[in-house]
């Protein structure tokens, strides 16, 4: 009578459960692999770049007199001179000019070492002359050689002397370019999105515009460079390498990003807001201007910031319109030759000296921090002001 029912799963079922576990593990593995790439990538950039944020400084007596202004190498003791950055010697005439009281004095001060010494101290190379090694060791023992914060990385422009090279001119160039992008693509992008979401009749032509915008978002960025070269520079005569040319080219790239996100923001505003406005007599444009736009503004701004961040990291089209020129001084107008942060990184990556590898990675860390700040601002803006309906 009492027949026992086995509840244990059969062998076939066990197999199926094992397959289930395996499949889940593959999926999790793929996700973890992608995240591992991210960790590896950041760890590698920090490993490569952290040392460029500090630089070797040497405490040396600097002599200012008529001779050393002319033959600047003689301003520091003979055995130390080959260790000091050339950028320091270049400044000596200017220092004396700015402060005539320095003339005929000797001052002990911290000066930046050149990249050979710097790279040797940081352990990247071993190729330093034996007597330089000896003097360096002596200075280290006396506390005359130390690490200091590399402010030149942020506050000086590009340079062929690695210890003097910095991101300042590229940073200013990036700001100019982004201003152009914002001025061009924000109004046109928002206007296009309003047209498509609020005004456009549902016909073939509107669909063509929509498909065209989606396609533009996926067109390889280098083709925008060809457009910038052929249309803006060769046809309209915008100066080559200028922030204006770069900004206009990147604007066209950013346009679809802004249009797509603005449309999403407009679509998120419920229909009854529009109906309510129109019920009390507002025209279509009045209801959009006074109700829909203010409500969707956080979403629009978020999309715009993300688009700008994307444009800020873009390099390929800028290569074609000549924005990889050597720019030691920050540009002061839209039509002057300029470079941008990613282009500066690209230029440094191609330099032969070892010191530029660290500089490139440091530049990358700076660029990534800027982009992360921008994107975080966008996310914050969305979380803080976006209304859920």
């Amino acid at each position, binding site marked *: 009578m009492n027949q026992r029912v086995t509840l244990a799963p059969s062998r076939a079922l066990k197999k*199926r459960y094992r*397959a*289930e576990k395996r*499949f*889940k593990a*593959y*999926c999790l593995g*793929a*996700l973890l*692999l*992608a*995240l591992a*790439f*991210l960790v590896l990538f950041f760890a*590698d950039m920090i490993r490569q770049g952290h040392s460029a944020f500090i630089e070797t400084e040497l405490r040396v007596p600097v002599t200012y007199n008529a001779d050393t202004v002319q033959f600047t190498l003689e301003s520091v003791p003979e055995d130390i001179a080959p260790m000091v950055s050339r950028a320091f010697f270049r400044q000596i005439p200017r220092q004396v000019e700015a402060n005539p009281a320095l003339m005929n004095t000797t001052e002990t001060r911290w000066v930046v070492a050149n990249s050979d010494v710097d790279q040797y101290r940081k352990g990247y190379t071993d190729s330093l002359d034996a007597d330089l090694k000896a003097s360096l060791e002596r200075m280290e023992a006396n506390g005359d050689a130390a690490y200091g914060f590399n402010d030149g990385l942020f506050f000086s422009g590009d340079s062929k002397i690695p210890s003097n090279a910095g991101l300042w001119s590229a940073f200013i160039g990036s700001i100019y370019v982004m201003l152009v992008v914002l001025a061009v693509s924000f109004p046109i992008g928002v206007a*296009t999105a309003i*047209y*498509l979401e609020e*005004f*456009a009749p549902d016909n073939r032509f509107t669909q063509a*515009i929509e*498909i*065209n915008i*989606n*396609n*533009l978002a*996926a*067109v*390889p*960025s*280098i*083709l925008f*460079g*060809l*457009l910038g*070269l*052929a*249309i803006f520079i060769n046809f*309209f005569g915008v100066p080559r390498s200028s922030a204006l040319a770069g900004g206009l080219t990147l604007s*066209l790239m950013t*346009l*679809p990003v802004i249009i797509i996100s603005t449309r999403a923001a407009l679509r998120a505003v419920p229909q009854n807001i529009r109906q309510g406005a129109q019920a009390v007599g507002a025209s279509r444009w009045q209801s959009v201007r006074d109700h829909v736009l203010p409500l969707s503004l956080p979403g629009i701004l978020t999309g715009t910031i993300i688009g700008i*961040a994307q444009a*800020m*990291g*873009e*390099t*390929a089209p800028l*290569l*074609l319109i000549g924005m990889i020129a050597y720019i030691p001084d920050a540009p002061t107008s839209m*039509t002057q030759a300029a470079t941008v942060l990613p*282009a500066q*990184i690209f230029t440094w*990556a191609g330099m032969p000296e070892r010191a530029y*590898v660290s500089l*490139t990675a440091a530049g*990358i860390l700076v*660029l990534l921090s800027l*982009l*992360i700040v921008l994107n975080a601002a966008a996310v914050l803006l969305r979380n803080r002001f976006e209304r859920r309906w």
Partner: protein
Amino acid sequence: MDTSQTLLVFFGGLLPLAVVAFVLGRRKALIADGQDRRLHSLPAQYGVYVATWMALPALAIGFVAATADLFGLRVPAAPFVLAFALVAAAVGCALALRRVQPTLRARNAIEKFVYWTLFAASLVSILTTLGIILSIAFEALKFFQQVSVWDFVTGTQWSPVATFRPGQDSAASQFGSVPLFAGTFMITAIAMLVAIPTGLFAAIYMSEYASHRVRTIAKPLLEILAGIPTVVYGFFAAITISPLVVEVAQSVGLDASYTNALAPGLVMGIMIIPFISSLSDDVINSIPNSLREGSYALGMTQSETIKKIVLPAAFPGIMAASLLGISRALGETMIVVMAAGLRPNLTWNPLEDMTTVTVRIVDALTGDQSFDSPETLAAFALGLVLFVVTLVLNLVSIIVIRKFRQSYE
């Protein structure tokens, strides 16, 4: 007077005039209102009406003058153009002011103006596509006048002879694009081998298995991968992954070049993972739950449901995502410029150096070559092919995604 000064005077002058026109228009409407005649629109709308009609003729004249100047036609000196625009503005303002009557439908006129302005803005994106096509096609046509299309498509030798002066003889140049496309497809294939499985499985995990908390953490982390600039990936590929590939190859007795095709391919794959995963994630999420529940009711496990029900249903969308990924990989520039080789090389071995279409475009256009040298023009021909191929991939995937969305709405 240079261009920027002219522009400054033009817009600087137009702005106060517009304010004056606005005040005049509104005042006339308010006077009519004071006489107890019922206005059709708000007084301010009459002001905007007059200001618009003041500004439009001036802007039109400025635009025509600028365009004519661009095409090399004779244009009167800037002060004359400015004066002419000013007169037109005054005439427009006066005419519009005369039309301001209580019965004038200023609001409707503004509405129409706004509509056409917005419409004009939406044409910019069409003009951009047109601009890309025209700018590439013209130069490419010039190229195909010098080099036959057949040689370009089937030739296996790409060896342009550098010409630095216009008109210099370049008969020895060969423009066979096959090795460039071989390199492009090799690197794209490697990238997709990394990106499609990883992206797809990660998307399945996030949409089917992960808890809400894991999802909210993992998704933005993956998006960071998508937000990293390509120049940064290029540096990563050249400085870290390439030497790594060489080392690993050596340890198993293989010879690898430092500009091998494998390293840029792998890194490009990493870059494309988030595109595939976020698009597939959207697609999988849009599959209705009833499908899954039906499958569970029949006793299927979760993975069986995913494999036999969800993925087949989501297949068109996943296909479209992969096509977009391929299009992205084909056109990717910085990674290959920095990490792949410059030598056109027809090979099956990903450890050798290979070059790609985008590398040659950048190389041809950043050198000191004269603009009408065959090599520069060849860059535009390569650009044309790249545009057509990515256009087809993009259109197919856009249309598939649209159809897919509609089928589950």
